[in-house]
């Protein structure tokens, strides 16, 4: 794996590198370089190879860098992080932290990956398509001494934190789809999945998984089973992933500290400002049925309120989508 990473560090500048020079620098044969290039292509990278010129990435790439991320973190958050690490490839960053429980302390442990081979979408085994360097795949571990009040609303508060961090980095036109999808112009930009384990009457440990599309290469577009967008289409100058990551970590940890003290109340107004569905006709899809109605908004506990046949109902699950009224 180190060889792949080392190769990518050469290619990241987006310029041509000859196979011979790469082979020398990495201490391997030219055939081995070619094999590594093939395998990087398998991770979703667009690498040209041109005779007598060598290999070149279609676009320069900013690799994740722990030192740079640390420098850009909000000062107050620096001390809240116990470990900050980048795994070049991870099955899933959430899985990586969850597997440490219950034995290890994951409080303040932040993990990033350049590529996820099995990024988690949600319970029904959807995967988060995670091309190498094309997005942000980030998990944050945290410990609560007691289950916070309205625990499920933590999911919505995280959406507020992440959307705020992206706005701070110049990404405009963002909104939220219940419970926490980050959406722009009807397309998904990012998703959040929280996993946790704990004893109801005492503590809990949580892992917040955040996936953001930064620049999704064309060759993986077909793998994503829903309308999506990425940050590169929403900004004039693309912020570096390190900058985005630092902003997201700072905002999320800040949110966790607030949520532990005050619950969802500090985030509800902002969630409602970002709510893209309130007042709209929508469908709420469950595995075996679909309910249609008008979205009334969110309750103080984070549940979705909908008016269905003139009656108000509250929901803690289901997949929301706008209904086209033809």
């Amino acid at each position, binding site marked *: 794996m180190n060889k792949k990473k080392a190769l990518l560090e050469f290619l990241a500048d987006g310029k041509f590198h000859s196979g011979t020079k790469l082979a020398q620098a990495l201490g391997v044969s030219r055939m081995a370089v070619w094999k590594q290039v093939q395998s990087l292509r398998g991770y979703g990278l667009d690498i040209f190879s041109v005779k007598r010129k060598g290999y070149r990435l279609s676009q320069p790439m900013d690799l994740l860098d722990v030192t740079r991320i640390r420098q850009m973190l909000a000062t107050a958050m620096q001390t809240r992080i116990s470990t900050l690490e980048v795994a070049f490839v991870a099955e899933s960053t959430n899985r990586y932290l969850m597997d440490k429980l219950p034995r290890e302390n994951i409080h303040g442990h932040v993990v990033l990956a350049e590529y996820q081979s099995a990024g988690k979408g949600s319970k029904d085994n959807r995967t988060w398509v995670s091309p190498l360097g094309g997005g942000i795949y980030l998990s944050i571990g945290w410990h609560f001494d007691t289950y916070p009040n309205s625990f499920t609303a933590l999911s919505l508060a995280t959406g507020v934190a992440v959307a705020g961090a992206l706005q701070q980095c110049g990404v405009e036109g963002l909104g939220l789809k219940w419970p926490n999808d980050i959406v722009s112009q009807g397309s998904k930009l990012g*998703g959040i999945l929280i996993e946790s384990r704990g004893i*109801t009457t005492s503590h809990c440990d949580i892992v917040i998984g955040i996936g953001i599309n930064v620049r999704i290469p064309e060759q993986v577009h077909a793998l994503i089973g829903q309308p999506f967008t990425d940050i590169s289409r929403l900004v004039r100058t693309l912020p570096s992933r390190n900058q985005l990551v630092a902003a997201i970590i700072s905002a999320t940890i800040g949110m966790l500290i607030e949520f532990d003290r005050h619950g969802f109340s500090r985030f509800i107004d902002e969630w409602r400002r970002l709510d893209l569905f309130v007042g709209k006709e929508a469908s709420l899809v*469950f*595995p075996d*049925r679909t*309910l249609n109605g008008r979205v009334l908004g969110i309750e103080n*506990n984070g549940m979705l309120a909908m008016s269905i046949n003139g009656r108000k*109902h509250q929901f803690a*699950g289901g997949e929301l989508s706008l209904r086209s009224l033809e």
Partner: protein
Amino acid sequence: MAMDIRKVKKLIEMLEESGIAEIEIHEGEESVRVSRHSVVGPAVAQVPQSGAGAITRVTAAAGAEPGAEPGTTSADRIPEGIKVKSPMVGIFYSSPTPGKPPFVELGKAVVKGDVLCIIEAMKIMNQVEAETSGVIAKIMVENGEPIEYGQPLFVIREGT
């Protein structure tokens, strides 16, 4: 109000025992409704049902059903032990992923900290751990069932 305060108290206890969100009892002209939820607005507790996705109004009109006299039904059949309750509203899953064997079964020994089930809601998947070591004496909910906050899920008989 003619209804005995002790009856109301009993009602509240039953409610807490049962995991039901709301009970309404009619006695002649009088009626009382007790709800465990302090949601703003009307005290409805509606959750999507299971993977099934139906909505259920979690209400029980205890007086309406013969044989559902206070204190004589399900509460008495619950074995002694520690009740493990849900920390959140959501759907109860007995196994890590569909088709996999359940985390625990009736009569199985568990150690404090073992995962008993998953409750899922709003993109949170929460693994509920055993708060004590012992034997699973009762499983009070079924796979795919909608769960209320504080609803008892398991009874663990303490000891190893």
